[in-house]
């Protein structure tokens, strides 16, 4: 509905609608996983004059935080009210917060989902004959592994 002035009138915005849009915001470092499935959405509050979104950083020094903040603000701009994105440590983000879809998204990106060291499987061939090269990989949240089955290096999400 469009008013004579061409403005969309202020309407009720459901929290579920906001969360549905957040489901389309991707992690900039792992584009196969949405921020909802990554488990970093702590709280969404829809107010008459603005929308507040509280996010949990995966790692304190994660350099993608500002990119995620901007992506969330862009994605929610269509609701026609200011969006306030904050980061909080009100509860620690842990790898338990990844949803099944999030874990599948990691595997699709060639990253082994977080698990106990002895349970890590190669995301390419499924082999359990893997060895950790280094706990520190190309991003803060990933470790480096080598698969003795298919002889590929791969990355695994660090359990925290």
């Amino acid at each position, binding site marked *: 509905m469009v008013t004579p002035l061409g403005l969309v009138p202020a309407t009720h915005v459901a929290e579920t609608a906001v969360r549905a849009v957040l489901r389309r915001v991707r992690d900039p470092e792992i584009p196969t996983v949405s921020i909802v499935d990554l488990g970093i959405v702590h709280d969404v509050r829809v107010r008459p004059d603005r929308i507040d979104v509280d996010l949990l*950083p995966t*790692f*304190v*020094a*994660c*350099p993608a935080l500002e990119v995620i903040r901007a992506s969330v603000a862009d994605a929610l701009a269509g609701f026609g009210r200011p969006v306030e994105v904050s980061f*909080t*440590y*009100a*509860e*620690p*983000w*842990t790898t338990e917060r990844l949803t099944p879809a999030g874990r599948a998204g990691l595997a699709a990106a060639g990253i082994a989902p977080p698990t106990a060291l002895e349970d890590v499987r190669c995301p390419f061939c499924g082999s359990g004959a893997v060895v950790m*090269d*280094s*706990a*520190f*990989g*190309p991003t*803060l949240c990933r470790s*480096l592994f080598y698969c003795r089955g298919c002889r590929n290096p791969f990355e695994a999400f*660090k359990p*925290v």
Partner: protein
Amino acid sequence: MTLDGVEPLAMDFGGGSSLDGRERALALLLLSMADDEFVIGFSDSEWTGIGPILEEDVAISSLAQDELGHAQAFYGLYAEVVADGRDADAVAYDRPPEGYLHARLLDHPRGDWAGTIARRWLYETADAVRLEALARTSHEPLRQLVDKLRREERYHLMHVETWLDRLATGGDEPRHRLAEALAVMGPDAGTVLATLPGETALVRHGIIAEPFAALEARWRAITSTRLVGLGLPALPPTADLATARTRHSEAFRSLHAEFTMVRRSEVGATW
């Protein structure tokens, strides 16, 4: 705010004359931890591009990035307590070298790889004891941050303990270099857990679980067991505790000149 035998720290609270004793002590604690993480993070980042092997180049860069992020979080908490209008960047970069409160252990330059590992090991083991003593702190924003940090620092400890073993048991030269670095830094190792002015208030208000002397003793027991296991000499007692976080080295002044360079040349630049 002086404590017997402790040199007053160069604290500038700006308009902070309204801070009470608890807030001042808390601010000092937060700033000392922020400066520790900032200085070791910046110093370790010097390895980026020249790490001994590719995996370690990546690892030390990742560790340094973690520490700088932790520093940013602590500077943020400090800025909230002091509330003098400065943000985390202003606190991190706009002080003269003598205004930094990091432990003297971190005044040592990174040295060779054995030196970096020795410094990281001495620091990380002390930091772990400190974080444990803050796990149930009464300052809720700090409690939340510490809960998060301890999950990350676990990986730092694993990394440095692995390297300690590797250097200590990997032949004459690495063992010799490690022992030499530990001997040079040993007298400053305990400075990370040196008492802070306002410690009584920190304990009384439940901000820290125990006095620093108790933490230092626990850390000394942990490190000494480890060194004995590796057949390495025990650490000497800490020299000159009263100036543990003041009177910084020439090496730190050079580091300071470097990490403030962008900030000085481009006022208002952001990370």
